[in-house]
């Protein structure tokens, strides 16, 4: 038993898991408020990361400025996407909605590969120190940064939904669209806002992951990895998304440890979450925190 490797991997798992949690939160946000399953969540991440990288490298902006510009860009992107593509599909059957987001995902994936290239590009050095010593463990600064950002986003979400007027409007819309509309909430703008927030936060997550690893179209796979996390946590629970994300992140790294030390299969790391997904769907389809779907005739 290699304890130091295991603990290192588990810490990585928590950090990565927090990021999964953030992306899963964006996914749940869209699902809850607009009943759309967003298969293009991964592309949001890649888009945010590429735009920020482009601003830093080619436009030679300072990282902070590039970061802010990316957020503005992602907001506009999310709103336009909702208005142009998703709005005509309100009330369509679930397969249409799923397929439209899949279509978006293919479209943007190849568009971005075309514009930004296929190869992975690393961010230029953003932090002065490469890694810090914490409790006797070696942690990369980028990891620490990503952890801080994740916690910050989660607190932001909590505050937004609990106390702000718009958050309340969104919760009301998620609860019942017709009632919300009759109480004077503009459901259209709530939908647009949900997509905008989701795009912005995914963009942030993309930048953070880009800092930790490097930016490439492979980041989009996180959009797929989110599914085990949200199913485990429950599709319509924001807390569930965070918990599911962290569990999946740790489990993934745990699987890598077992694989590397004992089994030597090679790719248990990527496939383990999907086995978990199937098992969860068989035993407890609504996840840990999801609301059970009760149908009346």
């Amino acid at each position, binding site marked *: 038993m290699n304890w130091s490797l295991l603990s290192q991997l588990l810490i990585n798992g928590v950090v990565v898991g927090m990021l999964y949690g953030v992306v899963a939160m964006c996914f749940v946000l869209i699902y809850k408020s607009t009943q759309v399953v967003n298969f293009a969540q991964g592309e949001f991440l890649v888009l945010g990361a590429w735009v920020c990288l482009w601003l830093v490298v080619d436009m030679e902006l300072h990282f902070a400025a590039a970061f802010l510009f990316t957020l503005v860009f992602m907001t506009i992107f999310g709103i336009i996407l909702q208005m142009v593509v998703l709005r005509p599909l309100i009330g369509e059957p679930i397969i249409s909605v799923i*397929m439209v987001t*899949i279509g978006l995902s293919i479209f943007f994936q190849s568009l971005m590969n075309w514009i930004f290239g296929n190869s992975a590009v690393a961010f230029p050095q953003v932090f002065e120190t490469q890694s810090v010593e914490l409790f006797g463990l070696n942690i990369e600064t980028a990891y620490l940064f990503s952890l801080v950002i994740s916690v910050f986003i989660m607190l932001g979400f909590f505050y937004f939904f609990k106390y702000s007027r718009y958050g309340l409007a969104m919760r009301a819309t998620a609860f019942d669209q017709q009632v919300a509309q009759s109480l004077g909430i503009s459901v259209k703008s709530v939908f647009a806002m949900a997509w905008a927030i989701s795009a912005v936060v995914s963009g942030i997550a993309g930048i953070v992951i880009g800092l930790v690893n490097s930016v490439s179209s492979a980041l989009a796979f996180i959009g797929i990895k989110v599914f085990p996390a949200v199913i485990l946590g429950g599709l319509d629970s924001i807390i569930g998304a965070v918990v599911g994300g962290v569990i999946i992140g740790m489990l993934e790294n745990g699987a890598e440890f077992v694989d590397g030390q004992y089994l030597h299969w090679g790719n248990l790391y990527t496939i383990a979450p999907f086995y978990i997904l199937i098992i969860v769907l068989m035993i407890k389809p609504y996840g840990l925190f999801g609301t059970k779907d009760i149908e009346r005739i």
Partner: protein
Amino acid sequence: MSSTSLRPCGDFRTTYKADQSLFPTKWIFRWSVIGLLVLLCSPLLVDEYIISLLILVGIYGIAALGLNVLVGMTGQISLGHSAFFGFGAFSSAWLNTTTEIPVLITIPLAGLMTTAVGLIFGIPAARIKGLYLAIATLASQFILEDFFARANWFTGGSSGSVAETAMFFGIPLDTDIRFFYLVLFWTVVSCIAVANLKRSRDGRALVAVRDHYLSAEIMGINLTKYRILAFGISSFFAGLGGALFGHYLGYVSAEGFTIILSIQFLAMIIIGGLGSVPGAIMGAVFIVLLPEVMEALVSLVISSAPIFSGLESGKAYIKEMSIGAAIILFLIFEPDGLAHRCGQIRKSIKLYPFSY
């Protein structure tokens, strides 16, 4: 009324037999026969490249028909169809090399093997539906892809496996033209099988499950049985198409059966028309031709306006983007697909001067 060649506006069929006939009008039957004859003679009419496209249309069409049974008729979304397609390709190659059974027989046998796998992966469908099922099939896609990469005994691992050429009574079906007839045979058989399924008791049960599963259950339809059965049927056709695909290429590798192909299958049936037999084939034609058309279009743009010569390097990306864009545009502007549009056109021709 049903004896007239053109139906008057509205449905005037008065017997069950007329309602369930395979060809609703005589002209549809005649056109089908003419179309089949043209396809049979097509090697004389067109060059080999078109034949190779037709083979692809046939293979993808068979798989899309299977997916249409699952998605269009039963209303269960599957994002893992290409994994079953791949499983068919591998199992036919594996059966042929290990047991020496001739390829012509291993192709349907591979379909049956894939059915078994499809039934296993269909078990979650007994409990979950809609979105949850879509995600479960997504997981099965990745699990099967991982299996292909790992199971050396079955798939040859990362190096892939060799699929022998099919032999027809001593004639090797090694050229595109010879193989075309094999694909055409299976495509016609599959089309008739699915069209017949739609007329049978089981087919109606599947449609009832799609339309309202609770009502279907109250009417005595065994939901679990039919949901899993739909998976079985759809994976049979996927396996059949996959086996043909494997023997057509002569070589099967695990990289060919990714989620992108699954999405393309879904795109075929959405573009063609959910639940429609000719729709699945039309969708396959559309998806196979789309890259070709885009290629020609890009070349045309470049030759007419040299300013856009930068597009040359992006050809591959434009082809991929066009698939995504086609899905989005069809869902927004023509959600019922090409088959529905064809019906509309037929109707408007029939009613031409007085459209009301």
